[in-house]
């Protein structure tokens, strides 16, 4: 699975996710990637793209859950993503990337690794695979 989230200079957020799914998946199987709210979500607060165990991500509605925690509980981005990945999605099941409309970035996962990269306008850059 691959994905990208961004917030532009106007503070608008967007998210995109794409995948081939699983090796040896049943024909017709649909994972979390194309399900808005599960694998992908964006609103005026944040944008989120997930990766990992699709069925679990669907059950947790991970992407929308992050946005809801920000919108209704006023959590900052990092706290919202930590809550979803560490308290809702079972350990070892996946991760997500997210940006907020104020330019914060989170790359949170509870697997051994996640191929990831991020950058912000103020010069912060990070590329990583493991924790």
């Amino acid at each position, binding site marked *: 699975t691959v994905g990208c989230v961004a917030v532009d200079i106007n503070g*608008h957020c967007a998210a995109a996710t794409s995948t081939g799914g699983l*090796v040896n998946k049943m024909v017709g199987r649909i994972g979390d990637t194309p399900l808005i709210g599960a694998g992908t979500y964006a609103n005026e607060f944040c944008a989120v793209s997930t990766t990992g165990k699709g069925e679990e991500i669907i059950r947790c509605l991970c992407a929308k859950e992050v946005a809801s925690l920000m919108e209704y509980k006023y959590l900052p981005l990092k706290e919202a993503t930590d809550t979803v990945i560490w308290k809702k999605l079972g350990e070892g099941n996946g991760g997500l990337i997210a940006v907020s409309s104020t330019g914060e970035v989170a790359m949170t996962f509870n697997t051994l690794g996640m191929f990831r990269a991020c950058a912000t306008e103020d010069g912060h850059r990070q590329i990583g695979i493991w924790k």
Partner: protein
Amino acid sequence: MGWALALHGGAGRISKSSISPAAREASETVLQEFLDAGCAALSEGKSALDVVELVVRLLENCPLFNAGVGAVLTQRGTVEMEASIMDGATRKSGAVSGVSTVVNPISLARLVMEKTPHVYLAFEGAEAFAKDQGVETRDESYFITPGNKERLAKALEAGLVLLDHSVSTDGPEHGGSREVLQADGHSGRDYPYANGHAANGHPIAAGAEFE
């Protein structure tokens, strides 16, 4: 406050010993390259929506990752790709599933969002829409890599139904082991997948893990 960008190429049981130095370097190089492309676009004032589509297209066109070229195979050896996109400013969204000829499913998802009254098209309907819109398509063989054919063959040989739990479909082609659900419904672990080389020629470390 300013622009910001993040991208991913999958998550899973990726141990440090499971990736060869060459594969690690290749992954980091393309992540850096695609990050730079996205940052440049945002710096130029492009919209977040345009930038996420741009970056995901780059990732889809890279055989290291499980999307577009390099997409993994179904039980029948076919390709069924899926993608979605969402614009936070308008909360408009678009998604596609079950496409097997569309070079960039993410752009087809955006067309669903912008050119139809719907959110989600799948299988024959999505393929027909792709043809109507004139998006680039290729024969299914374009997407299939030798590495993914090999992985499917081994899974079929072993009679295993794989759980979406580890790395193989959510990371570059590193080879390795995975949690599996056996045909009788009992779970097992460490089905050996690590041998040979990835389709891109990167050596796969013995004992590597992938989904």
